[in-house]
């Protein structure tokens, strides 16, 4: 489903990604963890070309990405209907209702008839547990509700891959569970997912694989039982050790 070859990305003089190579099979759920500034989000954003990269190649959902592609080109637009993205800050469209947020892309990009788009939106709202909030505007919803709408919005394009960039970091603890439940449902349903996260519970219980990213490379890659419970590298040991330390 995803194949990353020697991906390099520079911000000025700083190397953010240093030759990342990885494979993801259909239906896998990858938890991407690691210290801040290690390149997690950048890697994720390169996978749907929200950020361009300097070297290497990505094959994702049948689309091949190379450096220097045009911003609004047909390849990228095809890519984005097949790869959904969920942001830390939700980025719902504030001038549209929950339903209109979800139906916008199908109507505009895929030219889905309004009635069909609406039906689909209601099904997705039910799926994320917000069937009764179709007419609500984003500011009338809690953070957890907004993030679930954002997930429904991304799902409305029927993507093959879902990318999550710290989906629960901006949420209060009591709201995280609702969002994580939705993501667990997606993973169980066979969606291919890459999730940048600090949630140990997610990495441990839901992910099929964990990547520890540090200084622009995948430092450790394996099933949670191995990476989380028995980290091999110094950075992974420090990372999980710090997170596991009991709260004061």
């Amino acid at each position, binding site marked *: 489903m995803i194949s990353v070859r020697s991906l390099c990305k520079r911000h000025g003089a700083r190397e953010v990604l240093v030759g990342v190579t990885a494979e993801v099979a259909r239906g896998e759920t990858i938890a991407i963890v690691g210290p801040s500034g290690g390149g997690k989000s950048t890697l994720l954003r390169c996978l749907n070309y929200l950020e361009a990269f300097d070297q290497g190649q990505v094959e994702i959902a049948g689309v091949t990405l190379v450096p220097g592609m045009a911003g609004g080109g047909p390849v990228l637009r095809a890519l*984005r209907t097949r790869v959904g993205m969920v942001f830390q800050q939700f980025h719902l469209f504030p001038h549209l209702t929950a339903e209109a947020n979800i139906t916008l892309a199908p109507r505009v990009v895929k030219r889905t008839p309004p009635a069909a788009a609406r039906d689909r939106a209601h099904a997705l709202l039910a799926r994320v547990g917000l069937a009764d909030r179709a007419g609500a505007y984003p500011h009338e919803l809690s953070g957890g509700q907004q993030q679930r709408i954002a997930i429904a919005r991304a799902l409305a394009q029927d993507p093959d891959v879902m990318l999550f960039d710290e989906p629960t970091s901006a949420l209060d603890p009591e709201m995280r569970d609702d969002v994580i439940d939705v993501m667990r449902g997606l993973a169980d349903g066979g969606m291919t997912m890459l999730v940048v996260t600090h949630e140990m519970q997610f990495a441990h219980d839901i992910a099929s694989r964990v990547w520890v990213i540090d200084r622009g490379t995948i430092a450790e890659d394996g099933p949670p039982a191995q990476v989380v419970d028995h980290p091999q590298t110094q950075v992974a040991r420090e990372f999980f050790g710090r997170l596991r330390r009991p709260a004061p």
Partner: protein
Amino acid sequence: MLAIAWLAGGAGCSDGGPDHGGTLAAIRARGELTWGADVQGGEPYVYEDPAQPSHVIGFEVDIMAAVARRLGVRSRMVQYSWPTLVPSLERGDFDVIANGLEATAERRARILLSEPYFVYAETLTVRTDSTVRSVFDLAGQRVGTLNQTYAYDILRMLYGEAVKVYDGNEEPYKDLELGRSDAVLLDNIIADRYGCTPQHPALKCLPYDAARGVYVIGIRKADPELKAAIDAALAGMRGDGELERILRGARLWDARQTETWPAEGHATGQTRRFDGEMVVQFLEAAWVTLELSVLAFLLAVPIGMALAVARIYGAGPARQAARLYIELFRGTPVLLQLFVLYYGFAQLVNLGPMQAAILGLGLNYAAYEAEVYRGALLAIPRGQSEASRALGLGPAQTLRHVLLPQALRLALPPMTNDFVSLLKDSSLVSVITVIELTKRMTIAAVDMRGWIVPGMLCAAMYLALSVPLSELARRLERRLARDQRPLTL
């Protein structure tokens, strides 16, 4: 203009003051006679010397120098806008008026008028193919003249409101040549020098005098002894041939000067009163103002939006072009832009005054709207366009569905501001002969010899237009900016 001049604070009051008289004594004490005139009146009256523009010349400069010399003092011209000369004299800003001031009964009721120094003829100018033979053939035709002249009074007496009024000497003839009007009635001095000239081969001046009148010096009511002194000076100049020499020098001497002086002009009869007809005229003018402002704004909004988008997202040349447009239209006076559009481009596109006004104001305001939308677009968080792109929307779709709707609601308060401002700026289009609310007020103020009633009527109508609009905008704002209600402080 009249009302504005009356309201403006007065600098440079002469010693005499408006009410107390004694101006002649003050002139002698200070050794200087000050006289008001407008260089916009142009050659041959009072104008800047082409060879030495800081210096004014003209036959009235020579006449006033001679008058002052005969009073034993120096002469100094003071620049005032022509329509404000009488009120400024009354305020005491200068001693006398000498600038093509026609003797009419209305003026005599207000100020003292000297003996004439020049006899002029109202001259009708038409296109060479015109069948018009006299002022009485003009029913249903568009006739141009200068604002607040005797010719204007004659035309209004004959034909009511269907008169195009101008402030400069060139423009009436330019419009006549372009077919925007059918005739121009003005003093022979102006007609000879600006109308039937080699520059306008398509125009002819009819050889008959439509009417005759005289130019006089205007003096404050309280200064009969100054009038007597000036009349004596003029009589002396007539007697020893100095007046003839001056007029010959300016190529103005003709047989009319030695014939009997014509009877005093008496056009409108009496001053106007506030009545239902005036309210109707103001309502019509308010409609012009509203129509003009709404259409101009409807033009400014899409152009402004396109400019803002070009300036933010456009490729290099588009961005530069948008910037150039904004700087050009924002950085030059809208009055100048209207002039260029209406007169400068007349050979290319012959726009009607209303079309030119809408286009001119629309293009000008587009520059301001562009910056409002640019600010609004830049205020939208980056995440919005990122989320939109991540959903597969192209650049145009992102603009149309995500960015512009959000920008518009951010832009609504400044847009309301701009619209109310446009409503009032629309008064500038009177320079291209559109009679809108402010112009209607100045006309009524002249007819009524007072600005208070027309001024209040005018203000009431502007408010009646702008207040409901702000209210409408307020409601729209509330509907659009649901999530932007302010927190209490």
